């Protein structure tokens, strides 16, 4: 570069010297001035272009130049290109980092030394009702104003994480983690669900204890009576009967609890063929036996499909639905077993004409030990676990339980199975007709079982 400048100066001086020698000193000075003026103009022009570019340096738009400027500007261009490549790499790293933070299941807020919001992910926006863009630079305590949290923010990272409720019933755990130069990371975790599960677990333990203690108290009371008092044979037998009844109640609760725990922990059942027609016949016979002529029990729907799953489990689940319907339908009422098939799958339902269930209870019916009316269901011998067992069994067969009911209009419990759980009825079906009913003459159409 210096060389170019020196060459230009030497050329102007040489020209001026030649002009001076040929046409006199005045001409020589004139040419020198003109040459220097042209050089100055050239520099000023490039300087102003460079200044204009520096005002808003656009990547890849460094002005080009001639003469001594070409070298300078080329070097600047190279430097600019390297700088923007570095910047792009940094921006890329930042984007990748933010994407990673964005993907975290917890809320993340980055705070500066003054606890102002620098950045937050969408989970944090949702948890704390922030707006990552608009709230940039806003002190976090201005927006998350819970006194407990403000105190935590002031106390620094040594304090234990704080729990706040942003809106009714939604719990958040907030934790500050310091990093880098006085920067802080705030993590927010929604613990609503975890707390709900914890409450359910506590309720369950309390319920089990209560359910087992009640018959046990009765049992102990009678034991004392029988031991202390001199009773006649009839009273004694009555008391012993009641004791046996309470013991078998405890037995049933424990059996159901074991069934539930097996259903929860065992691997999914093998998909063996469960012939539906004999299953329905057996359920109908059981229902009649349980009802003892007190209800009008019928079966509607014929099966052309079988189910794939565990016969033992399905019989238990369906049997639960049937015995519920019989138990909660007053004498003289109707209980109908329904089998339906469609392209989407198959369903087994029990429709009764009982008292019905109010809407607020329906979602909670499958909770363990949930009782609509504490006295009533125990009188009828329920353990409070039946529908929980049904729900678990169906879930193991990719099925669902639907309960439709209105007070005074009876209830319908439907077990629905998807198409992949059904099989065309097997050939073995006609060979072994159920003993309870006479063998049907045609293989496919049966009169809906109504008798």
């Amino acid at each position, binding site marked *: 570069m210096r060389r170019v400048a020196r060459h230009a100066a030497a050329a102007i001086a040489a020209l001026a010297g030649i002009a001076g020698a040929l046409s006199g000193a005045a001409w020589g000075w004139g040419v020198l001035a003109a040459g220097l003026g042209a050089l100055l103009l050239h520099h000023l022009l490039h300087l102003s272009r460079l200044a204009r570019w520096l005002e808003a340096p656009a990547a890849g738009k460094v002005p080009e130049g001639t003469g001594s400027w070409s070298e300078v500007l080329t070097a600047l261009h190279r430097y600019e290109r390297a700088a923007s490549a570095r910047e792009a790499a940094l921006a890329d790293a930042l984007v990748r980092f933010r994407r990673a933070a964005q993907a975290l299941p917890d809320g993340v807020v980055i705070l500066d030394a003054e606890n102002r919001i620098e950045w937050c992910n969408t989970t944090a926006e949702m948890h704390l009702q922030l707006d990552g863009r608009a709230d940039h630079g*806003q002190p976090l305590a201005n927006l998350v104003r819970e006194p407990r949290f403000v105190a935590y923010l002031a106390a620094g990272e040594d304090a234990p994480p704080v729990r706040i409720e942003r809106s009714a019933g939604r719990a958040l755990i907030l934790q500050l983690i310091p990093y880098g130069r006085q920067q802080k990371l705030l993590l927010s975790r929604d613990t609503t669900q975890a707390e709900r599960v914890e409450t359910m677990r506590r309720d369950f333990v309390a319920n089990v204890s209560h359910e087992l203690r009640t018959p046990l108290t009765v049992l102990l009371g009678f034991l004392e009576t029988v031991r202390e008092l001199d009773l006649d044979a009839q009273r004694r037998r009555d008391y012993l009967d009641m004791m046996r009844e309470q013991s078998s109640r405890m037995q049933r609760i424990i059996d159901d609890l074991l069934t539930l725990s097996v259903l929860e922990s065992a691997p999914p059942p093998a998909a063996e063929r469960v012939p539906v027609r004999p299953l329905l016949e057996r359920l109908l016979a059981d229902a009649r036996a349980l009802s003892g002529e007190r209800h009008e029990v019928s079966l509607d729907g014929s099966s052309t499909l079988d189910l794939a799953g565990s016969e033992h489990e399905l019989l238990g689940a369906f049997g639960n639905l049937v015995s519920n319907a019989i138990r909660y339908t007053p004498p003289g009422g109707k209980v109908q077993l329904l089998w339906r098939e469609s392209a989407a799958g198959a369903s087994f339902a029990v429709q009764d004409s009982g008292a019905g269930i109010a809407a607020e209870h329906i979602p909670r019916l499958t909770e363990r030990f949930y009782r609509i009316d504490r006295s009533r269901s125990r009188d009828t011998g329920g353990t409070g676990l039946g529908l929980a067992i049904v729900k678990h069994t169906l879930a193991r067969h990719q099925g669902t339980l639907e309960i439709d009911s209105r007070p005074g209009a009876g209830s319908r419990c439907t077990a629905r199975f998807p198409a992949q759980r059904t099989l065309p009825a097997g050939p073995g079906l006609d060979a072994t007709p159920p003993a309870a009913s006479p063998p049907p003459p045609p293989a496919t159409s049966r009169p809906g079982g109504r008798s």
Partner: protein
Amino acid sequence: MTDHASKQYDLDLGSIRARVLQMGGLVESQIRRAIDALGSGDIALIDQVIADDHRVNGMEVALDGDCSQLIVKRQPAASDLRMIFAIAKTVTDLERIGDEAQKMARMAKSIHQRGAAQAPPTVDVRHAAELAISMLRRALDAFARLDCDSAAQVIRDDAGIDSEFRAILRQLITYMMEDPRTITTALEIVWIAKAIERIGDHAKNMCEYVIYIVKGTDVRHTRL
């Protein structure tokens, strides 16, 4: 905020705003605890709400002093002056909300101490309280963000609380007519409902100040 030659000035104003918002957070938690205690009958919690009102009052006094000091020291103009005026008024409204929360706690205490067997249900009161808390929260958010649009939305939402209040009143009147033994408790619930309705009004006022700060127009007693 506008650029100031003095950084200290900015810091002072920012710290006053932050403390107003903290006072708002305290007041909000007072309402929530009062309404929770009304539901659960937790007398210890009620006493704590009543006792904590002095903290709200203390914050009001301190903030008022700081506002006067800032006016004297810095002689703010234009938007800063509007901001300080609005802060002083917001603080007054927040202090009143604190009083209303304390009133709710007092009523809850007397309802639960009487242990009235045939107390009218307080579910609707709870719902109205949730509305009021949400209005207050959004008013404070609008103040923190100087967000006119959401402030205007809160002002419009005040009608919702007013109609809740009238519905609660009608319901309580039927209870009182059916069973005169419920009158004492029902009247106390009316006081609580009235306090909630007032909280909505104060939140609305705060939003009007936000619009005043940002736009310099006074929207009080006008229809948005």
